[in-house]
């Protein structure tokens, strides 16, 4: 997973489909990121913050009881233990440093489940930047606590009431705000999506997840690599970062989409949010709404590099439905004492379903646990009942 081709293309996917008003801003981010990524001082600063403030490296945890139950050896990359509770911090610390490098004072972000919004608000507070987060009305209702967390961190949260009132509409509104404020404001996109250079930049900022996992696994297993590497996919940032660490190995790479938002399985190539990728759309080219129990995976598209990896056959993309996800959520809590984010529970749900089937018994499976589930506890309680 190297740099994209000319124009930000991953095979036929990617590109930069933005209004003329935003072309210069995307080019500025591309140039600034290229310079920063080639600068050892930038890496030193980024790595320092991720270690001393973010809690990296995150552990690789072997799931002893779950492995016995499933008959496959399950290890979790614990992004839930990073500061703010998910892998999102890796990306936003990098983009916050870049914001300052570009001489801008403000970051805006979209958020679905709220994890990227919380992470952006956190990075903004850390670095003394202003922050505004756009969040769909539906998501604000199901993730009330994250809304309050963002406000505590000093961010303005803007309610988005257009369209499906979820993540896709939050991206539209953030893009609209960016056009109007681009001189002072950086759009801190939360996933490996959007116009070039965002899919590439966010994957590079997340590759720490995959690079750490590979080295930790090799230390643990005498230099071997896992048989299967699994991550959940909405836009696909934790999966892209994870896969980046294993694409050169023999590991089988599996992304797990929400069944109600499966852009690889049911999407058709199209253009949305500045990128050419696979999208849920009707025959008129109108974008369809995704439906999932998890706000973070409620997105009708997927990052263009995932569409490319799927087309190349280097990664496969599977689905988990809401019921399987709730079961996996409980299973991890009961067997390992870890409450996963509903997003991450999609990756686990596929492993639970396919252990001994698509995953041969005795295989080693590395799962990126992209976030912790505290934010989802109230929703799960309402869905499945309990004390």
């Amino acid at each position, binding site marked *: 997973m190297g740099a994209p081709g000319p*124009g930000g293309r991953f095979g036929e996917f990617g*590109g*930069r*489909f*933005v*209004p*003329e*008003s*935003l*072309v*210069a*801003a995307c080019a500025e981010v591309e140039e600034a990121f290229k310079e920063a990524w080639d600068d050892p001082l930038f890496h030193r600063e980024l790595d320092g913050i991720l270690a001393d403030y973010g809690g990296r490296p995150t552990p690789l945890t072997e799931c002893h009881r779950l492995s016995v139950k499933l008959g496959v050896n399950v290890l979790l990359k614990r992004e839930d233990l990073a500061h703010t509770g998910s892998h999102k911090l890796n990306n936003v610390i990098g983009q916050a440093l870049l914001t300052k490098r570009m001489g801008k004072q403000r970051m805006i972000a979209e958020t679905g489940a709220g994890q990227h919004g919380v992470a952006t608000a956190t990075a903004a507070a850390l670095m003394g930047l202003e922050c505004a987060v756009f969040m769909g009305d539906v998501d604000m209702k199901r993730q009330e606590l994250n809304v309050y967390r963002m406000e505590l961190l000093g961010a303005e949260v803007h309610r988005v009431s*257009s*369209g499906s009132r979820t993540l*896709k*509409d939050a991206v*539209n509104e953030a*893009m*609209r705000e960016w*056009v*109007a*404020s*681009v*001189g002072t404001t950086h759009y801190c996109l939360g996933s490996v999506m959007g116009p070039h250079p965002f899919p590439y930049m966010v994957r590079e900022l997340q590759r720490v997840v995959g690079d750490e996992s590979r080295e930790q696994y090799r230390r643990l297993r005498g230099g071997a690599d896992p048989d299967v590497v699994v991550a959940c996919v909405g836009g696909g940032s934790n999966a892209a970062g994870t896969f980046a660490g294993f694409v050169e190995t023999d590991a089988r790479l599996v992304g797990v989409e929400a069944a109600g938002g499966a852009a690889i399985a049911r999407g*058709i190539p*199209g*253009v*949305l*949010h*500045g990128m050419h990728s696979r*999208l849920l*759309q009707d*025959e*008129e*080219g*109108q*974008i369809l709404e995704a439906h999932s129990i998890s706000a973070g995976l409620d997105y009708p598209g997927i990052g263009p590099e995932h569409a490319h990896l799927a087309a190349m056959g280097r990664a496969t993309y599977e689905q988990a439905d809401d019921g399987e996800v709730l079961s996996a959520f409980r299973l991890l809590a009961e067997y390992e004492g870890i409450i996963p984010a509903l997003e991450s529970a999609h990756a686990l749900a596929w492993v639970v379903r396919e252990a001994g089937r698509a995953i041969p018994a005795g295989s080693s499976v590395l799962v990126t646990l992209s976030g912790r589930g505290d934010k989802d506890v109230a929703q799960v309680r309402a869905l499945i009942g309990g004390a």
Partner: protein
Amino acid sequence: MKVGPLPEGRTEPPTLDAGSSRLEAVLRARLNGGSKLLVPYIMGGMSHDWLEVAHAAVASGADALEVGIPFSDPMMDGPVIQEAALAALRRGTTLAGVLDDLARAGIGVPIVIMSYYNPILRAGHRRSAGMLAGAGVAGALIPDLPLEELGPWAREADRAGIDTVLMVAPSTVGRRVGAITARARGFVYAVARMGVTGERASLGSDATDVVERVREASDLPVCVGIGISTPAQAIEASRAADGVVVGSALVRRVLDGGGAEAAASFVGSLRAAIDRI
């Protein structure tokens, strides 16, 4: 639906020189007659009477008409055009449906379709361009298709005789201005301000600069759009430019239920204003 006869398998599409653009020829004739250009925007299918609104706009002095194709995710549009798009989609509006209506309506001025890229891409470049040509449409403006990504569409548009109108923004500087105007057909859309469509209290200080940059690079007609809401702003914008595009201010009047009458009155007031220059 009529789809224009297009020769298949031709590898080297003919490129039209500026002189063969129908849209440009009509606009130039108006300019040579001493008029400034007035290009109102209406969302196709936004209401049952949208074609009456279109006719009223033309009868009240429009030199060309921009017709929007509704899209679920209009990234470049503010609340008014978003609402119009939603209303149109709820009425079951499609690209083919709008084009059928326009083909039958006999609008007396050139029509420029404004569509986001995905509906065009979904129908196919060649098929879309053929559908537009078959409906008698003169041009197309695709706001999320910048110069770098334009090729596959523009080849088919040229081949079908559809003028691709391009935008120059306040953030467009240096050689890029000339590169855009060299590929633009019909007229150049000068973006008056950094922002999405919608009514504004003032014209914005960028408009004149953008027009001047376009003038240095190109002889094509230049129309200013984004945020022009009042006759006074239309006068201010068309002093330096050849004309104005007015969208949200007109569409809001239709959304408010004013119908063809309100449209005629508003477009007439814009016409009277720019005719005083």
